[in-house]
C-alpha cells in the first residue's frame, strides 16, 4: 500500500530507456535455430547420465538440441504421454493401466541401474549394516522405530547399534526410486504388499519424525543433514553418498543372501531376467532369483510416444535412443554413474521398439 502512495506522490522519472533497451536486446536475441529440439524430463536417477551423454551426442549430431531436466519419473511418464516432452526418463516401466489406455506409449530400457539403501549412523557409516525387506517395511510403516530394535540387532551381531529413533526419508515427488523401493518391500513383505503396495507415489504411512525429500539430490542432502536417518537413493548418486561419508547397507535378496550393489551382483540380477524380458520390455528386476542377484536393480527406461507429431522429431528421437543403447552404453559414460550396460539381447529388443517410433 505504502509503495503505491509513494508512487503517486512522485514527480519525475526518466527511466523508460531501460525498458526500451531491454526490448531491443530481445529482438536481437530471438534468432531462429534450424535444429530439432528434444526435451527430456523425469528420473533424477537418469539425469546425471543424460547430462554426461548430451555433449557427446550433440557433438556428433549437431542438428539435434536436447534439453535435460530433472523432475521425477512420475513427471517423465506423464509429460511424455501428454506430449509436453519427447523423452520421458523413468526408473519405472509403464503400468498396465496406462498401456491399455495409451497403446502408443513405449517403455524402452536404456541402461541397468540399482538402488542403494543408505544410512547416517555416526561412527557406524563405515560398517555395511545388514537390512531386510521386512525390516525396512517395518521402519517405513513406523513399526520398527529404534536402531537397536532386536530385529535389526539379531542380523547385525557385533555392531553396537545406537538407542536412537530411526528417521526414515522418503521421496515426496513421483519417483521411480519409490517405485522400485516399494516393489522390493512388496515382494519381500506380504503386509506391505497388501496395504501400501508399490508405485511412483505411494501413500506413506505416518511415521513420527519421517521426512519427505525432493528428488535423489534432496534425498542425499536430507540424509546428510539428519544423523540416524535411512534413505533409498539411486546408484548414480553413489559418489555423493560416498563423499558425504554416509553408510551403505547390505540388503537381503530373494535367496536370503545379504549383498551390496556391485557390478557383479547387479549384473547377476540383470542376467536372471534377460530370457524372460517380453518384447515390450516391461518387467521388474526387483527381488530377482539367484544367489548373487542384488535385490533392488532395474532397467532405466525412456518413455516414448510412438506417434510423434512430425517426422523430424520422430527421427531425432530414434537417432538419440539408438545412440544411447549403443555408443551411449559405453563404460566411459556408465561407470561415472555406476550403471551397467544392457545385455545384447535387450539392446536388440530396445532397437525393435525404437523402430516403432514415427
Amino acid at each position, binding site marked *: 500500500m505504502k*509503495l*503505491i*502512495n*509513494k*508512487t*503517486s*506522490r*512522485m*514527480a*519525475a*522519472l*526518466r*527511466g*523508460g530507456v*531501460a*525498458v526500451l533497451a*531491454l*526490448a531491443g*536486446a*530481445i529482438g536481437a*536475441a*530471438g*534468432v*531462429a*535455430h534450424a*535444429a530439432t*529440439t528434444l*526435451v527430456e524430463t523425469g528420473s533424477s536417477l537418469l*539425469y*546425471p547420465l*543424460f*547430462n*554426461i551423454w*548430451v*555433449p557427446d551426442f550433440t557433438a556428433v549430431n549437431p542438428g539435434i*538440441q*536436447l*534439453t*535435460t*531436466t*530433472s523432475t521425477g519419473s512420475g513427471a517423465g511418464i506423464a509429460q511424455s504421454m*501428454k*506430449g*509436453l516432452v519427447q523423452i520421458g526418463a523413468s526408473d519405472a516401466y509403464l503400468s498396465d493401466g496406462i498401456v491399455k489406455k495409451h497403446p502408443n506409449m513405449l517403455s524402452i530400457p536404456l541402461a541397468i541401474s540399482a538402488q542403494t539403501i543408505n544410512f547416517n549412523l555416526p561412527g557406524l557409516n563405515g560398517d555395511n549394516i545388514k537390512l531386510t525387506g521386512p525390516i525396512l517395511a517395518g521402519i517405513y510403516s513406523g513399526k520398527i522405530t529404534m536402531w537397536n530394535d532386536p530385529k535389526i540387532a539379531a542380523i547385525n551381531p557385533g555392531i553396537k547399534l545406537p538407542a536412537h529413533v530411526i528417521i526414515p526419508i522418503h521421496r515426496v515427488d513421483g519417483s521411480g526410486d519409490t517405485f522400485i523401493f516399494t516393489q522390493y518391500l512388496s515382494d519381500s513383505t506380504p503386509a506391505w504388499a497388501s496395504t501400501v503396495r508399490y508405485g511412483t507415489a505411494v501413500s506413506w504411512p505416518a511415521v513420527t519424525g519421517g521426512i519427505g525429500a*525432493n*528428488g535423489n*539430490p*534432496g534425498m*542425499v*542432502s536430507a540424509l546428510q543433514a539428519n544423523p540416524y536417518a535411512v534413505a533409498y537413493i539411486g546408484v548414480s*548418486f553413489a559418489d*555423493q553418498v560416498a563423499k558425504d561419508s554416509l553408510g551403505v547397507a547390505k540388503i537381503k535378496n530373494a535367496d536370503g543372501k545379504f549383498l551390496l550393489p556391485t557390478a557383479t551382483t547387479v549384473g547377476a540380477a540383470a542376467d536372471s531376467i534377460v530370457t524372460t524380458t517380453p518384447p515390450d520390455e516391461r518387467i521388474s528386476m526387483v527381488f530377482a532369483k539367484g544367489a548373487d542377484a542384488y535385490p533392488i536393480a532395474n532397467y532405466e527406461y525412456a518413455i516414448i510416444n510412438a506417434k510423434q507429431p512430425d517426422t523430424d522429431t520422430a527421427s531425432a528421437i530414434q537417432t538419440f535412443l539408438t545412440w544411447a543403447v549403443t555408443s551411449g552404453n559405453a563404460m566411459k559414460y556408465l561407470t561415472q554413474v555406476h550403471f551397467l550396460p544392457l545385455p545384447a539381447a535387450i539392446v536388440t529388443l530396445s532397437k525393435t521398439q525404437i523402430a516403432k517410433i514415427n
Partner: protein
Amino acid sequence: MSAAASIKARRGGLAARRAIIGGLGWAACGLALLLVIGPLVDIVGVVSWHGASAFSVKLFTTVTNGTAGGLLNAIEGTAVITVMAMIIAVPVGVGAGIYLSEYGNNKLGSVIRFLSDVLTGTPSIVLGYFSYIVFINALGWDFSALAASITIAILIVPYLARITELALRQVPNAMREAGFALGASEPAVVFKIVLPGAASGVMTGALLALAISVGETAPLIYTAGWSNYLWNGKLTHEPIGYLTYVIWTFIDQPYAASHALAYAAAFIVMMVVLAINIGVRLVVRRGKAV
C-alpha cells in the same frame, strides 16, 4: 518518615521505573528494527558473496549444460518472458488505470477496483495452476513462452492498473478542464494532457511490475518448462528457460558447479529487482523534496 516525603520517594521510584521501562522499550524497538533489516543485509551479503564468485564471462556467453555451463539461455528466457508479459500487460493495465481514474467514480468502477484487488491477492501458484489447466492442458500449447508470459501478465496487470489510476488522479482537474475548454476531444485530453502529466508515475508502475516478473517462480514452473538452449522464437510448443528455475532446482543438486549457478542466478535476479526498486524510490524521494 513524613507522609509527604514517602509520597515523593514513591513518585521518584515510579518515575525511575517508568524511565527504565521506556529505555528497555526503546532498546527492544531498536532491536526489532535490526532484526528486520539484518536478514536483508545477510541475504544480500550471502547471495552476492557466492554469486559474484561464480561470475565469469562464460556465465553470460554460454548456455546451461545439464547442471553446469552458463546462464545465457536463462537470462534470455527471463528477458523474453518479462518483455512479452509487459507487452500484454501494459496496454491493459494502463488502459484500465485510465478508465478507473477518469470515468471510474461509479458503481462499476468500484466493482472493477475490488475485483482487481482480489486478483492482486490471489496466490501466484493458483494463477500458475490455472494456466497449466487452460494453456498447457486444454489448449495444448505445451510449456511455452506465451503461456508463461500470459500468466505473468495476469499477475502484474492489477498492479499496473492501480498505480496508473493513482498517478492519473494526481493530475489537477484544472488541466483537464483547460483542455476541454480549448475544444480538445476526450482521447486528446487523456493522451496529450493527463497521461503525459502522470508519465513518471505510470513509468514507475511499469518498472515495479517488471521487477515483479523478473523475480517470480511459482507461476512459471508449470507454464514455461525449462530449456538448455536459446529461445528459437516459437511462442508455443517450445519450452523456455528462466533464471528463477536455476535458483530453486540447481541448489538441490549435489554438485558444487550447480550451486554456483544457483547463486549466480539469484545474484542477477536480486540485483535487477533491488536496482529497480531502489532507483524508483530514490527518484520518487528526490521528486518529493523538490
